[in-house]
C-alpha cells in the first residue's frame, strides 16, 4: 500500500496556481526526489501535505488517513515531519534543546527526550556542538540541526526541503550519505526537494518534476534525465 497518496492537489494564492492538479504516490521505504525550477511550487506542496495550510483542492492521504484540515502538530504526531527550506532554528536554545523539543513529541520525560536527542545529534555528527546556541551556528550546521530535530520526532515519512542548499560539497556529501543511511535502515520513507541534479539522481528511486505548479513528469532518475520535455522546460532553462 502507498504510504502517501497525493490526489489532484491544487493550491491557489489569489489568481496564482502554485500547485495545480498534482497527483502521485509514494511506496514505503522509497526516496522520492521532487525537482523543478524556482517558484515551481515544491515548497507549497510540502506546506499542503504537512498542514501548514490546507490544499485548495484535492486530497492528501497518509498511511490510509486523510490529512486535509489537520494541523501541523497533529500531522507531526501521526508521523510526518518536514524541514524548512529557510531554516528555523530555535535561536536562543542550544542545539541539544532544539532536538529535545522534537523528541518531546514522543515522551513527557526530559531524561528520555535528552537520550533520544543525543542519539540523533550523533547521527548528524554534531556532538561537539551540543551545548551551542542554535542561533550562532553556521548555515551548514543549522541545516543538520533541522534534520536531527525532525528525526527526533520519529517520523515514518520525512520531507526534506533543500537541506543541501548553501552547503559546501563535503557537507552535501555528508547529507547524501545520511539520507542513504536512513533509507538502508528501512524505517523511514523520504521525499527530498533539491536543486542539485547530481545529488537527486544519486539518491532518488523515483523523481517527480514540477513546473509552474503542474506535474510535468514522473519516473526513474534515468527516465527523467532523458525526458525531452524536462530537458527543455527545466534543465534547458538552467543550462
Amino acid at each position, binding site marked *: 500500500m502507498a504510504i502517501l497518496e497525493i490526489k489532484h492537489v491544487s493550491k491557489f494564492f489569489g489568481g496564482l496556481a502554485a500547485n495545480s492538479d498534482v497527483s502521485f504516490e509514494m511506496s514505503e521505504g522509497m526516496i522520492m526526489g521532487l525537482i523543478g525550477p524556482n517558484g515551481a511550487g515544491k515548497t507549497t506542496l510540502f506546506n499542503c501535505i*504537512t498542514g*501548514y495550510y490546507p490544499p485548495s483542492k484535492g486530497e492528501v492521504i497518509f498511511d490510509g488517513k486523510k490529512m486535509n484540515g489537520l*494541523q*501541523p*502538530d*497533529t500531522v*507531526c*504526531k501521526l508521523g510526518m*515531519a*518536514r524541514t*524548512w527550506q529557510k531554516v*528555523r*532554528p*530555535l*535561536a*536562543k*536554545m*542550544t542545539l541539544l*534543546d532544539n532536538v*529535545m*523539543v*522534537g523528541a*518531546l*513529541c514522543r515522551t*513527557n520525560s*526530559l531524561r528520555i*527526550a535528552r537520550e533520544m536527542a543525543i542519539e540523533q545529534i550523533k547521527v548528524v555528527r554534531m556532538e561537539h556542538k551540543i*551545548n*551551542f*546556541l542554535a542561533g*550562532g*551556528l553556521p548555515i551548514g550546521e543549522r541545516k543538520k540541526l533541522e534534520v536531527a*530535530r*525532525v528525526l527526533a*520526532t520519529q517520523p515514518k515519512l520525512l520531507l526534506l526541503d533543500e537541506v543541501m542548499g548553501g552547503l559546501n560539497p563535503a557537507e552535501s556529501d555528508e547529507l547524501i550519505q545520511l539520507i542513504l543511511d536512513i533509507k538502508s535502515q528501512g524505517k523511514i520513507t523520504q521525499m527530498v526537494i533539491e536543486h542539485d541534479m547530481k545529488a537527486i539522481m544519486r539518491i532518488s528511486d523515483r523523481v517527480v518534476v514540477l513546473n509552474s505548479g503542474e506535474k510535468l513528469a514522473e519516473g526513474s532518475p534515468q527516465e527523467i534525465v532523458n525526458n525531452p520535455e524536462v530537458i527543455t522546460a527545466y534543465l534547458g532553462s538552467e543550462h
Partner: protein
Amino acid sequence: MKPFNPLFSQRGASAVQVTVGIVVIAALFAFPQFVKSPYVLHMMILFFLSTLMGQSWNIIGGYTGQYSVGHAAYFGTGAYTTLILLSTKEIAPWYGMWLGIAASIILALIIGSICFRLRGPYFVLASIAVAEIVRLTALNLTSITKGAEGILVIDIPAFKIGETVITDFSSKVPYYYIALVLALVIIGVTWLVQHSKLGYYFQAIREDQDAAHSLGINLTIWKNSALVISAAFTSLAGSFYAIFVKFIDPSTVLPLDLSVQIVLISIIGGIGTIFGPVVGSLVLVPLSEALRSNVIAEGLINSGLVSETSGIGIFLKEHLAHAHVLIYGILVVVVILFMPEGVLGYFRKMTAKRKGGKA
C-alpha cells in the same frame, strides 16, 4: 557564536549557588526579628509583591514570548474577588483568593481564545484592549464593584487554624511573611516550569511558532497553559495587594499603567530568566518609591545642583512625583539600547568577558 557557559546552565545549580540561596532565604525569614521599622518592612513587602507580579508575567511573556500588556486584568480580578467577598459575604481572604484564581483562570481562557489567534504586535494590542474592557466593566458595574468609589475594608479577619489565632494582621510582619512565601513559591514554580516539558515547549513557541507547530506542539493548548499559570499567580498578587492596602478601585488595580509596570519588571531585569524579575524589582521598587516620596527632587535641590526657586527646581518638585511613567519610559529605552537582555543579562556578559570567555 556563543559557547555554552556551565556557570549559567539552565540545568542544575552548583553547590555554591545552592548554599547562597539557602543563606539568603534564611536571612529573609529572620529579617523581621531584627528589623522592626514598619517602613523597611513595607518596602520589602513591595519588593516581594513586585517579584511575584514580574515572575508571573515572565512565564507568558518571557518564556512563551507572548507579550501580554493586559495583566492588570488578572491582578484586578484577584483583588476585586477577594475584597468583594470579604466586604459583602464576610468570606475570609484565604478562601476568597482561591475564587479569585478561579475567576482569573476563566478570564485567561476567554482572553486567550480571543488574543492567541493573533501574533506579535496584534497580540499586544488585543491584550491591552481586553484588559481595558475589564477595567471599564469594573468601573460601570457599580452594584458589585462600587465603581470609581472603590472598595474599602477596615479589618482583615484574624487567620485561625482551629481555635488558635495565627495572626490578626495588626502589624506588617504577617504580610511580610505571606509576601515572602508567595515570592518564593513563584520562583519555585518558574524553576519547575523551566525544568520540564512545559519550559521547552514555551520557549520553542517563543523562538518560532511555525517551527514549534511543525514539531508537534499544539499552539493553542500550550499558549493557554502558560497564560493560565501566569494569570493564576498575578491574581494571587492582586488578592494580596487588596488585603495589604485594604482599598481598591479601578484606577489602582486595573489601569493600563499597572499592566505596563508588570511588563517592565521582567524587561528591566531580564526576560525568560528565573532571577530577571527579582533583579527588575530591586531596580524598580526603590525607584518608584524615590519618585513617589520626591527624594530625587529634594536631593537635587538640597545638594545645590538645582536652585529651589529656579524653573527647573519648581518643575522637579511639582512634577517629578507624577512623572513615573516618563521615567519608566526613559529607563526602558536605556535598557533596550544598552542592555537588550536586561540588567541580569548585562552583568552575566560582563562577568563572562572578565573571565576571558567570548561575549
